[in-house]
């Protein structure tokens, strides 16, 4: 026991908070992520973290609550990406890129203005990675409630979302407004990404959104098991990552530990690589056939 959990692990308050908030973020990200990967919107999912973080630094400048900044910028960014309204995949890619470029430009401005306002250090690291150990405990209940609401919205539009992700034509033929469902999903994505950016940082936000989902979709046969596998994997890598990071303070004589995000991302990357090994992958002809025929039948029936 002693070798796995270094002294003081269980009595540390930040570690306890990180365990809870990390698990909540991992589950919400994994569930939203499965749809994000299926719909081919990984780029948007990543770009929205940068947009949300820009909002965070903007909120700091205007003395607003960070949560308002993160969520507001995310929703605005998602709206801007959708309003270009390009149906083709390539056009969507460009719209996302334009919004991302504009947001990072704004981030540069806010960083500049913030540093003239107060001598804050470590801001660019904050932009790049964020941290799982810096969440203000008072915002935790709000983050959890917003996460549950996001999942609730997804549950409400579950069937039309599934069908329009798998086959937009079939969905349209059945009277589903693919456009409205797409916009609702983008809003849910923006909120969930904003929440996870503020809770675990922008780096882990993308990692937990895409990694478990992409891995789960490779090894499972239907959507339900993909959702479960992704959530479990997200929670497990987060917790193991936190334990390893805590232990790593004792690995080096310099007593400089390695960051939590490094361990979590490395575990996710490893899991994804392993899921591609022959024998682990589910046997389907094409990886683009994300949606197993099984769940297509269920959604249609």
């Amino acid at each position, binding site marked *: 026991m002693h070798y796995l959990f270094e002294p003081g692990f269980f009595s540390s308050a930040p570690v306890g908070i990180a365990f809870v908030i990390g698990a909540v973020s991992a589950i919400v990200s994994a569930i939203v992520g499965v749809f994000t990967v299926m719909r081919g919107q990984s*780029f948007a999912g990543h770009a929205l973290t940068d947009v949300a973080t820009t909002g965070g630094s903007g909120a700091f400048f205007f003395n607003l609550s960070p949560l308002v900044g993160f969520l507001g910028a995310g929703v605005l960014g998602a709206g801007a990406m959708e309003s270009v309204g390009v149906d083709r995949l390539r056009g969507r890619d460009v719209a996302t890129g334009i919004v991302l*470029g504009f947001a990072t430009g704004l981030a540069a401005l806010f960083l500049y203005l913030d540093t003239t306002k107060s001598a804050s250090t470590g801001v660019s690291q904050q932009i790049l990675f964020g941290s799982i150990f810096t969440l203000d405990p008072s915002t935790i209940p709000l983050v959890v409630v917003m996460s549950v609401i996001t999942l609730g919205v997804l549950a409400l539009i579950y069937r039309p979302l599934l069908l329009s992700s798998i086959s937009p034509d079939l969905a349209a033929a059945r009277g589903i407004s693919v456009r409205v469902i797409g916009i609702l999903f983008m809003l849910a994505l923006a909120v969930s990404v904003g929440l996870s950016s503020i809770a675990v940082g922008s780096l882990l936000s993308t990692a937990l959104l895409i990694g478990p989902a992409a891995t789960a979709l490779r090894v499972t046969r239907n959507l339900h098991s993909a959702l479960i596998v992704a959530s479990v994997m997200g929670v497990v890598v987060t917790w193991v990552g936190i334990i390893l990071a805590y232990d790593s303070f004792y690995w080096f004589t310099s007593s400089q530990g390695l960051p939590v995000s490094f361990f979590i991302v490395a575990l996710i990357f490893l899991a*994804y690589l392993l899921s591609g090994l022959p024998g682990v992958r589910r046997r389907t002809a094409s990886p683009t056939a994300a949606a197993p025929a099984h769940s297509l039948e269920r959604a249609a029936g």
Partner: protein
Amino acid sequence: MFSGFMVNAWLIGSIVAVVAGVLGFFVVMRGSAFAAHAIPNGAFAGAAGANLIGVNPLVGLGVFSLAAALGIAKLSRRGRADAVTALALVMMLALGAAFLSQSTEYEPAIFSLLFGEILGVSTSQLWPVIALGAVCVIAVAVLYRPLLLTSIAPDIAAARGLRPERLEVIFLIILACATTMTVPVVGALLIFTLMIGPPAAARCFSDRALVAMGLSVLIALTTIWAALACSFTTNWPVGFYVGAYSAAWFVIGRLYVVWRRAYGRSRRRRSAVSKDVALIAP
């Protein structure tokens, strides 16, 4: 505004704009925006690693951007390209975070790798940029037709004996080369913005490949020049103006498309596909 340290800024800005305009045209055509974001952004981790072990940061940038390009191309064959790109990006950033945690006093250096220090370019930094920039533009010129054909109609390209996967690898390597040269001087974020906004706007103005590419270079040049001038006057960061002007050009381009669809009688309406095919025959 046109003397002292600003001379180098104008020079380097113009070179970067030309390279970004040319390469960006293919980034937009091929739908590689995510890779164009991931490679420069992740490559910075290489600079952090090089700093840690005491090597020239350019080496670290080169190694990481090349590894990113090859890794994305290799893994994309057996998985979704966008998910793979996201995973490669977070893996490199996580390595960067690990390197940074082991070194100290790197904050200003990270900031400049992200947002660039175009106003502080020394003359000795000019030559590697010019050399690598020339290599990128020449590579694109040599591969112009196969790149265009595999971007627009991979099936036709394959039927003519071209291999789209191999060209994708080559294209990503060219991107990595451009990244290595530009990240230290203009930053990872600025180069990405220049590679998306101006070419996307240019495509709205013309269906012809060469015209669109020329326009893309012109728009990128005006963007960086205007950004430098504004930044010099207001003291605000160059990156902000580049992001804002690129987005503005794109909005103008989209408005032009809408206007032409509504009032333009001289041109026949073309479907999205035939517009792409028209690009093959410039």
